[in-house]
């Protein structure tokens, strides 16, 4: 069991994600976005299963505009897997759980 999906923002993105000692899957989302709401429970389920080895985080693009700009995000939800401060892979849209699991397993 993990600690739940961690909220990250422009201020702590570097310390919580880029400089983390574990890989991190970050869900870039916004409250007005329907598909983002649909994928939120999936992130939670994955966190419960893999939260010990991977950080599951989410970044509200409305409150933190700089980080999404830095990663050229033009659609939400976008889910990016980071390892050692670098982008390993990313997925755009509300995709099935199995697709996200494939992404997560790349970091295990």
């Amino acid at each position: 069991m993990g600690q739940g999906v961690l909220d990250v923002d422009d201020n702590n993105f570097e310390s919580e994600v880029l400089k983390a000692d574990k890989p991190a899957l970050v869900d870039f989302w916004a409250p007005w976005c329907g598909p983002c709401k649909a994928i939120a429970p999936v992130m939670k389920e994955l966190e419960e299963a893999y939260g010990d080895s991977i950080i599951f985080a989410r970044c509200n693009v409305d409150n933190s505009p700089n980080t999404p700009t830095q990663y050229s995000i033009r659609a939400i939800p976008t889910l990016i897997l980071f390892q050692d401060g670098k982008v390993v892979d990313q997925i755009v849209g509300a995709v099935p759980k199995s697709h996200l699991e494939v992404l997560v397993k790349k970091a295990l």
Partner: protein
Amino acid sequence: MLKDLYDVAIIGCGPAGLQAAIHSASKKAKVIVFGKPRNSSLYKAHVANFCCSEKVISGKEMLEAGRKQAESFDAVFLEEDIIETKNENSLFSLITESDETFTSRTLILTMGIARKKLRVKGEKKLVGRGVSYCVDCDANFFRGLDVAVVGNESAASTGAITLLSYAKTVYLVCRKLMITDTLYQQLRNSQVKVIQDTWVKEIIGANEVEGVLLKNGDTVKVNGVFVELGAKGALELAANLGAMFDAETMSFVETNRKQETNIPGLYAAGDITGQPWQIAKAVGEGCVAGIEAAEYAKKLANS
């Protein structure tokens, strides 16, 4: 008391929606049904495997008959798409493409599933790099840029108007507009540049969208392409209300045997809950949803 408060609102007028309307209206619930028959997958189908009907029936005729049945129980029909749903104080508000708001105690989602992708060259590669399927989600990323919206129906037209508040130039690429007169006037009076009688052949760009190549041979330089085919579907309307989706597909709304979703008063029936794509399943679920929603509305009204 709200004027025109409905007990049961139904989005979608295919077999699931019609059966839900028949059963809820026959229980004396005040029922309104939104949607256009041509958007039902039954519209162009011929049915040969529906129980107790030996002859092959035209889907269009079935839809017309079902509507008459529902109307005989006083269900009201409005041939408009819903572009926004809200859930406040135990009531659902629905905004139509003509910008009218309706309020209901319960909501049954029966709008089926529709193709969302264009399936043209460049599309898949550029998803998230300028190609988007959700104006409401992604308009903000295109501030001051040029964008094209693709689609013939309400989602594209309302999406293009929304984008005017963000983008510098908004093009709407369509074969033929299939929207209400009110929305058409709104579009005509707006700054949206409508490109009609053509379609997108290819989305151009190496690492991000640079433009669209049209079937008429023209190229339009844009930074973003919003694909908004048909009416707004499950991911836009249902997810916005907080409905849970089937995690394995992310395409279908999850329901229990009463056709209830995780949101009180919100039901789903028919193709939107998953396979098989059969009328028999749609009407079965529609029947249950209609009865359950009518009862729920009655309890809510008496509480």
